[in-house]
């Protein structure tokens, strides 16, 4: 499971990164293992993804999202 698998409104806990190349900027914005992530919006054409990570609101591309492994917390339909 990665962030790219999340549905809108779903929350998850970040588990680990499947690459060494996660930009440091993303970590600094709170994208660290153990933190909560919520998918808020998906842009038209399914990319990028608008997330709330640990209280920070940010958008990342699907290709980056695919490298962030997660455990889904709960299902909430919107």
């Amino acid at each position, binding site marked *: 499971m990665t962030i790219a698998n999340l549905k809108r409104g779903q929350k998850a806990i970040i588990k680990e990164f499947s690459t*060494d*190349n*996660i*930009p*440091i*900027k*993303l*970590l*600094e*914005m*709170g994208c*660290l293992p153990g933190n909560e992530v919520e998918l*808020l*919006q998906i*842009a*038209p*054409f*399914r*990319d*990028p993804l*608008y997330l709330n990570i*640990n*209280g*920070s*609101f*940010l*958008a*990342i*591309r699907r*290709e*980056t999202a695919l490298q962030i492994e997660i455990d889904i917390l709960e299902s909430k339909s919107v």
Partner: protein
Amino acid sequence: MSKQINVALIGNPNTGKTSVFNQLTGLNQKVGNYPGITVEKKEGVCKLPRGVKAHIIDLPGTYSLNANSLDENVVIELLLNKNDKDFPDVAVVITDVENLKRNLLLFTQIKDLKIPTILVINMADRMKRRGISLDVELLEQKLNTKIAVVSTRKRQGVEKVKELIANYKNISTDPCVDTTVIEPEYFNGLKAAFPNQDIYKLWLVITQDANFVKLDRNLVKDTSAFSTKSKTELKRLQHKETVLRYQFINGVLKEGYKIDANAAKGFRASLDRILTHKVWGYVIFFLILLTIFQAIYDWSSYPMDFIDATFASLSEWVKETMPAGSLTNLIAEGIIPGLGGIVIFIPQIAFLFLFISVLEESGYMSRVVFLMDRIMRKFGLSGKSVVPLISGTACAIPAVMATRNIENWKERLITILVTPFTTCSARLPVYLIIISLVIPNTRFLGMNLQGITLMMLYLLGFGMAVFSAWLLNKILKIKSRTFFVVEMPSYKMPLPKNVLITVVEKTKSFVFGAGKIILAISIVLWFLASNGPSDRFDNAREIVTAQPEAENLPEGDLETKIASYKLQNSYIGIAGKAIEPAILPLGYDWKIGIAVISSFAAREVFVGTLATIYSVGSDEEETIKNRMASETNPITGEPLFNLASGISLLLFYAFAMQCMSTLAIVKRETNTWKWPVAQLVFMSAFAYLVALVAYQLIK
């Protein structure tokens, strides 16, 4: 002069750092550049209690001391260089109460540099709505610093900041986090090798090698004492450091900061839903763009007409009042029209920056980036290219500078290369005068034909930008790690004062930056048109009067003939004649040729040049448009500005790279002459070709 306290304002983007700066300094600020790079340097003076003054620098926004860009480098370079005259006595870290956790990361890094660091928690007015409560005393104790809770929107707390700055000596310089615990062995090695250096500073110098410009790296040159780690390992350590810092911050905030997760999430969510909607999102964006263009080209026409008329009468007035002579001519025909050519752009530039600044301050711009990223990526661009492409309609210079926050080098380079195709305001005067000459002022399908032509030219410029981006994306073989992170700030009402200051600053930098070039060229042109190398220039009157066909000419026509003979034998005339063979196939005569050549310095010079060329020697106050309309083609004898040559000129200006300042900026931003030269050659060759084909087909 008493000693000033050097203060550095530091903070993440979107924390209201500039608002704090504006309120501390009022209008008592100046904007310049850091030497050698085009990063804006904002400084100001703030009066503190008891007659002390603080010299305040507003450093570029950064998320951490791990620099990713030129702007961010400025921050770390200053903080690591004790000998810099701006090295801060005290750092003020501005944070947003809603993002305190993330913002504190930077705070802990600065504090670890052992610089006295004050914490400003801004946007306090939003606390109630977001259900946030702060235990300031506890936070002060845990972070070992002094805190000011500020609301720039409500003008609260800034006095407290001043007071803390004045008493900066009472602030502890103990670090927050001991970085060495992430890998004691490595750091012990470092300590042993450089016993006199501060370990955290050393660590920053080692890890920040990516884009260092001028920091003295001799510090770690001699690495024989220990083996330097590989980049991947360093990166792993940086990850660990980030985790460590967050652990510390979580511990601090656990008791001192409470947020009610259920409070007021609705506003952002519902606004986001509309603004990033797959249909409405684009419709709203399109409407906003339409409003911007409407403002730039319609609303600003009133002040522009006024400026135009004012400068024309000023020129007239000088001619009438001052004694006739070279000086009067220089002022009336060179300097005043030259100045007018600069001032006339002020309304458009101001409108554009007004909109851009409102869109950025409100948080909407990030939504546009989010909305457009997928589409732009098809053309090798990024969602973040939208801002430069929109800014490009005012001026390519700030637009090229606005590409800095595009993380991916290839996307950034492509954006820089194609931005000059967008129709900048300097092309507008050229378009306007030629359209009014060659396109009939009639209606077509209920719309004004001239207006349609203008719009087509804009679409053409934008289309060409996108097309060449697509092409470059195919051609350029640049491997660059792609990553893309955009912060989505909360929606805010823009503060009028911030918007105003941005508009004034940007307009000023245009007037004094581009203005200098335009004015200089106007004067040079005037000189070249008013002087000639040979007797034929000096004795024009005698030569023309002596010609047999001159005898029966009425007085006015004779004067025109003399003036035109003079012009042909001036320096500029001789140069123009020399290039005429190259431009005749495009339908231009040598006068247009001169205007085209001189506008390689800056496009807007075109009209000014024709104005200068035509007005030199002419006493009559005639509009430039009438003069142009009465010109005839040297070969065909028909009006020089007809549909064929007009379209040819319009297309030439749509595509040609005619702006020295843009080339200079591109050189600075790409750090090589390769790209600006490629731009110049490709765009100009393409422009020539298109203009040639157009003229030959239509004529």
